[in-house]
Every structure is written in C-alpha cells, then in structure tokens.
C-alpha cells in the first residue's frame, strides 16, 4: 500500500478577485521508503502540492476538489496537529528564513524533541557539532548549517514521510550536493519515504528513484529515472533533457588565431575594509592576485560560486571599482586614465533585465541614452540607430514607445543587449545574463549573444555560476575560487581533465548526462 495517495487534486487560487486553478486533477502515490522527485519550473505547482499535503496552504489558495490520503486516511478529516511533524515532516525552501531569528537553535529544536540529549544527538546526526550550534542564533549560522538544523527538526519526531521543497535554494552548488546526500542518506537509513522537489532535472535524476514531471499545474509524466531520461514522452521533459545534454555533445569551437589583448588583469588585488556588518549575503568579495587576458573577439567564461569574487571582477573591469593594487589594462591603457572614446567601448549586461531598465523610461529613451551621453549624432540619426538596434535584437519597432514592464523577461534582456550595442562596444561584460531566464529562453539569448558577438567582432567576459552553460559560448574558461584563479583553459580541457580539485567538484555537481 502506498503511504501517500493524492487523488484528483485541484487547487484554486484567489488573486485580485479572480480565481484560477493552479493545479488541475493531480493524482499520484508515494510508496514506502522510496525517494520520489517532483521536477518542474517555477510556477508549475510543486510547492502548492507540498503545502496542500501538509494542509498549510496560504490564505489565497484552497483545495477545490480531490483528496489526499495518508496511510489510507483522508487528511481533510484528520487532526493535522498529530500528523505534522510526527507523521509527515517538511524541509522548506529557503534555509535562511525557515528558522525564527528571535530564538536560539536550542529553543527551536526543543519544540520538536523532548530532551536536550535527544536534540544534541539529532544535531550530530545531521552532521553538526552540537555544542556550538546549540547555543547559536540562526543568523550566526551559514545557509548549509541552517538547512541541516531544519532537517534535524523535520525528522525529530520520526515521521514516515519527509517532504523537501527545493531544500537547496540559495546554497552554493557544493554545499547543495552535501545537503541532498544528507537527506537521501537519512531517508535510506530510517526507511522514510522522501519527496524531493526541485527544478533541476539533472540533480533530481541523481538522487531519486522515481520522477514526476510537473508542467503548468499538471503531472505530465512519471516513471523511473531511467525511463524518463531514455524515453521522455512529454515535450517539456525532452527540452529539459536536451539542455542537460548539450555541453557534452559539442563545444563552442575555440578561435585559433591569436588577436591582441583587449582587457588585461595584471596581479590585481582588491580588498575591502572589514565592514562592521558581517551579514553573509552582503559581504563584498575580495579578489586576490588575479591575472588574465581577454583577447579581441574572444569570449572568456568566468565561473565560480557566489562570493568567489566574480562580481567584483566585473565591476573592476568596467572601472566601477578601483583595484587595491595591480593594473587593469584596456586596449593597452590603464583603465583609470581612459579617454572618453575608450570608455565607450565597454558595456555591461546584468543578471536581472527588469531591474537594469529604468521603469520610468520608454524603451526608445533607454536605448538612446548611451548615444545621448556621448552626444552621438543628431536626433534623427539616433532614432534611426534605435530602430536598427531593435531590429538586431528582434524587437518590433512599434514597441519603442512602450515601458519595460510591458515586455517579457526574455524581451527585456534583448532590450538591454540593444542598449549595450548602441555604441558599438569592443568589450561587453555579461554578468549572469541568463540566470533569471527560463530554460528555453536561456538558449535563445545565448544564441543571440553569440551571433551578435561574431557579427560585430566583440569580446565577452561571461560571468556565471553555471558551469554547464559555459561550453556553449566561452572559448576559454577561468575558474575562480575564493578570490583566486584556480584554473584556466579551453572549455574542452576544463571539462575533460580538470586539474584543480575544486573544478572537479564543480563538474561533479553539474548535472550532466
């Protein structure tokens, strides 16, 4: 008998007076001691499913029809206080906000366990040194530690079913992998059924026995991991699998002819004064003795996890920050004394396109702005240029009068590309340009960037945490770890024989088939 049975579940949401169905006719079962994965993009209804099992839906969401049976009993009629925690445990998305900031870990753990001894045993079970953690406040812990505490709380009353909803959100890849292993390990040891929820098919495939693919509120496909990977039935599943396969199948052909260096870092050090607020999220990343070259018409990928110094490097290369020591040369000139003409040659594209467009300016004005700043051409010439640029990035000219919020995220990113191209730059810094985009749009933007880069002979400094995307666009890859370059080389070399152990770790945690 299945431990959990979801039958014809439909969840409605009230929003601004209208009602819509976020989940339609969902049915699935979870067997004893299995690890089942729910995969889908954001908005597919994964979290809603988890919360409806716990009966913890937010006010605006409600179960319209269908039932959820736990060990054969309908949860609608059960006393949930006896089920939550002791029968079904939940590990929630964001470890930083899952713990109450006002209470020590000890106090929050003791709500779940009877004795201090038990609580400390639990902490050791999830791999934490109990003494120090026990007396800490949540903000004194790292994200990984917080999530371990959450796991300890979730399994404290020995539930039979554990739901982990995107348990690694906001964690670095290497830590995320350890958290996943911990969860799966505990499920195996204690013979708990585990529902893992995630958006990354590659990671999910690695840890689950069985996968369920959610798409727009419906279960579109389910089966064993091998079945799904080998014979995907639904087009969305196929698309996700394609994305995983690409890096291995073909590398971006490296440019073999040597061109002069466009941007050069010579032993650059950037230190930040120790700041009073030691808030992890805002710590500025230092850069330590970094040297590299970016040649003309070349794309260099800069990869590393959050906090490794990527963004600092991006800001340094644009002159937004000054290095503590060392030199940064652009076209052979020191970056601090650049002429206006040379400054025009550098542009940047940010991660979140919406926030990089001034919401109170029309698209036309936004794209025109760099031309205005450098007083290029007269009004007519600028309008002509704006239309040209819009066409280049595939936005209709009639949309020039619209405001940024009237476009989709993908289109917004196209607009920022158009703005970056306005002055015919030689160097464009791409700071995680695709990480806020959906999988299918990601590829389109990468292709557009590639095409424009070749056509206008631009160099890209492509910054990302996502090693998997790198081979698609980068000629060379630089791996950054704690502010230092630990490895650099062609995409092929890096993937085939990584030299540094950290690179190896990164590659291992990249889901690839």
């Amino acid at each position: 008998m299945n431990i959990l049975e979801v039958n014809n579940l439909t969840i409605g949401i009230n929003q601004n007076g209208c009602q819509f169905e976020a989940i339609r006719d969902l049915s699935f079962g979870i067997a004893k001691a299995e690890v089942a994965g729910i995969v889908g993009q954001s908005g597919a209804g994964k979290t809603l499913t988890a919360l409806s099992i716990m009966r913890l839906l937010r006010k605006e969401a409600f179960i319209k029809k269908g039932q959820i049976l736990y060990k054969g009993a309908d949860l609608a009629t059960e006393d949930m206080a006896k089920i939550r925690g002791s029968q079904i445990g939940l590990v929630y998305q964001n470890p930083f906000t899952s713990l109450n900031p006002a209470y020590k870990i000890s106090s929050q753990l003791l709500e779940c366990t009877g004795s201090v001894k038990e609580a400390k045993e639990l902490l050791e079970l999830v791999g934490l040194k109990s003494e120090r953690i026990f007396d800490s406040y949540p903000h004194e812990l790292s994200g990984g530690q917080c999530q371990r505490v959450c796991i300890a709380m979730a399994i404290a009353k020995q539930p039979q079913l554990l739901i982990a909803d995107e348990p690694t959100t906001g964690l670095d890849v290497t830590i995320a992998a350890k958290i996943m292993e911990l969860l799966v390990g505990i499920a195996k040891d204690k013979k708990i059924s585990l529902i893992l929820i995630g958006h990354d098919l590659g990671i999910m495939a690695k840890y689950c026995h069985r996968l369920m693919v959610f798409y727009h509120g419906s279960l579109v496909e389910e089966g064993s991991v091998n079945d799904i990977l080998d014979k995907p039935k639904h087009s969305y599943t196929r698309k996700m699998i394609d994305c995983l396969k690409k890096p291995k199948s073909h590398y971006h052909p490296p440019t073999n002819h040597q061109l002069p260096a466009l941007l050069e870092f010579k032993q650059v050090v950037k230190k930040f004064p120790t700041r009073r607020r030691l808030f992890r999220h805002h710590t500025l990343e230092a850069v330590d003795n970094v040297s590299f070259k970016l040649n003309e018409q070349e794309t260099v990928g800069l990869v590393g996890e959050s906090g490794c110094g990527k963004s600092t490097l991006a800001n340094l290369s644009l002159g937004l920050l000054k290095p503590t020591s060392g030199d940064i040369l652009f076209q052979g000139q020191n970056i601090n004394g650049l002429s206006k003409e040379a400054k025009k040659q550098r542009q940047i594209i940010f991660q979140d396109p919406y926030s990089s467009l001034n919401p109170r300016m029309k698209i036309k004005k936004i794209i025109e702005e760099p031309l205005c700043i450098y007083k290029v051409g007269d009004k007519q010439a600028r309008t002509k240029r704006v239309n040209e640029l819009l066409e280049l990035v595939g936005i209709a000219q009639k949309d020039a009068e619209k405001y940024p919020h009237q476009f989709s995220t993908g289109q917004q990113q196209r607009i920022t590309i158009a703005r970056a191209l306005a002055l015919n730059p030689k160097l464009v810094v791409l700071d995680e340009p695709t990480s806020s985009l959906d999988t299918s749009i990601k590829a389109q933007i990468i292709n557009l960037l590639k095409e424009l880069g070749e056509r206008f002979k631009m160099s890209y400094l492509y910054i990302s945490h996502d090693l998997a995307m790198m081979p698609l666009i980068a000629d060379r890859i630089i791996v950054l770890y704690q502010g230092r370059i630990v490895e650099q080389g062609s995409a092929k070399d890096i993937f085939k024989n990584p030299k540094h152990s950290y690179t190896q770790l990164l590659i291992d945690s990249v889901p690839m088939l």
Partner: protein
Amino acid sequence: MLKFAFKRAAQTIFVLFGVSIILFLVMYVVVPGDPARAIAGKKADKSTIKAIHNKLGLDKPLYQQYFTYTANLAKGDLGTSYRYRRPVQEMLAEAMPATFVLALAAIIIEVILGVLAGIYAYVTKIKFIDAAITAGSAFLISVPVFWLGMILQYTFGIRLNLLPVSGNNYFTSLILPAITLSAISVAVVIRILKTSLKENQNADYLLVARAKGLSESQVLYKHQLKNALIPTITYIGMDFGALMTGAVATEIVFNWPGVGLLIRDAILERDIPVIISSILVLVVIYILFNFLVDIAYGYLNPKVRAGEKVA
C-alpha cells in the same frame, strides 16, 4: 555589542553638543533685544547694563561665551529667570516630578491598552471589532492632544462631573491628563503591533513551525509575537522621552503644574531663559532615552548584538 554601544554613545554626545550650540545661538545671538536690559529692567542706566554685560561675559568673543555657557550647563546652572530672578534649575526641579508622573502614568496605559488591543485586533475573527479598533486608532493619530484633553475635560468634568478637570491634588486628577497624553501613543502601538504581526504572518519560519506540529496558539504567542514585539517595544521605549515633551499641551489644558505649564507661563512673560532651558532639559531627556532604548534594543535583537546594522 560593546562597539555598537560606544558608537551610539559617541553619536549621542555629538548630538547633545549640536543641540547646545543651536540653543546657545538662539538664546545669546538671535534673541531680539539685549538680555542685560531684560535682566536689569527698563530704567537701568548705562553703567548697570555694562556691569551686567561684564558679569555675564557678553562682551567676550562668541566662542568664549559658548564655552562659559556649556561650562555653566555642566555645573547645572541653567540661567536666571528674567521674571522671577530665580535660578531656572530650581524652577525646573519643582516642575519636573509632576511631568514625570504624568508621562509614567501615560506609558503604563500605553503598554497595557496598546498591546492588548493590538493583539486582539489581529486575532479577532469579528471583522467589525478589528475595523473599529483600526479606524479608531487611525482617527486618534490625527487628533490634536490638547483638543482631546478638552473633550475629556468637557465630557467627564463639566457634563458628567465625574473627575476633576485640573490641578494636581488627588490621584483622580491624574486620570484625565494621563488618558489624554497616552491616547495617540496607544493608537500608534496598536497600529505598529498589528502591522508587524501581519507583516510576518507569511514568514517561512511560521510555516516551518506549523509543519513541526505546533498548535496555532504556540505559533502565534511564541514565534510570531516575539518578532512582532521588537518594533513595538522600541517604539514604547522611545515614547517615554516623547511623552515628556508631548506633555506640554496636555499640562496647559489641565493646568497640570509640570514643565509644560512652566514653559507656557514663560512664553506669556517672554521669560526667555526659562523657555530655552526647559526645552533644553526636555530635549536632553528625549535624546538620552533614545540612546538607552537603542542599547536595550541591541539586547532584544540578536542581530544587532552580533554587530550588524539593522535599519
């Protein structure tokens, strides 16, 4: 934490100096007319005036005058009243206890009524009561304190003849002024508490707490309330200083013999040293209270204790 306390202390000392400079400038530089003439009276001859000038140091350069002024302040010398020829510190010492008692009574009402009503407005399922409490507190915020005092005086003192309308004779004469003074603060406490309860009602840690199997009342009174109380307690703490200063209008309406009444009488008499020094003392109390509350807040909020800046 110690670093935070030191920083706040340094900032407070700086602000105190700034305040003293402003008040010094107002009192000795911008004041229309010659203070010596105000002290000596209209009929005094030139040599008397000169002697007073000399005695007060008014013939010295400005910065020296400022040093004398602050040195006197540090010694507890707040100047001499034009009208009564008495040291201002004496007059203030007489008036201060009444104001303090009034502010204390107001803060007690504020804590009890404000916190209870705030929680009740949030918890209650009866929409009408919530709406009434919310609307009532919104309304109170826009009512001038002195007007509210007059209404209470009119209703309970004149119409119903239940409570004394003025003076400082009995405990009963404290009731109306204390309610008047606390009214706005009660309204603000209700608002702040309800808003912060509402703001964190969707916090992830509450969802996780429920998922652990805690009951709704455990979630509310343990997890939700403690976080929501932090801004409320901060406000209440700072409010004591504000109430001391807000007492001015209330005291005038109820003829309550505190610093407010002293200031009003001095205004009518144009007794500038009394006005300025009374205000100086009230402002200093206000600043010191803010400082103390900030430090206490640091102990309440673990994040500040760790040395983070919380906006």
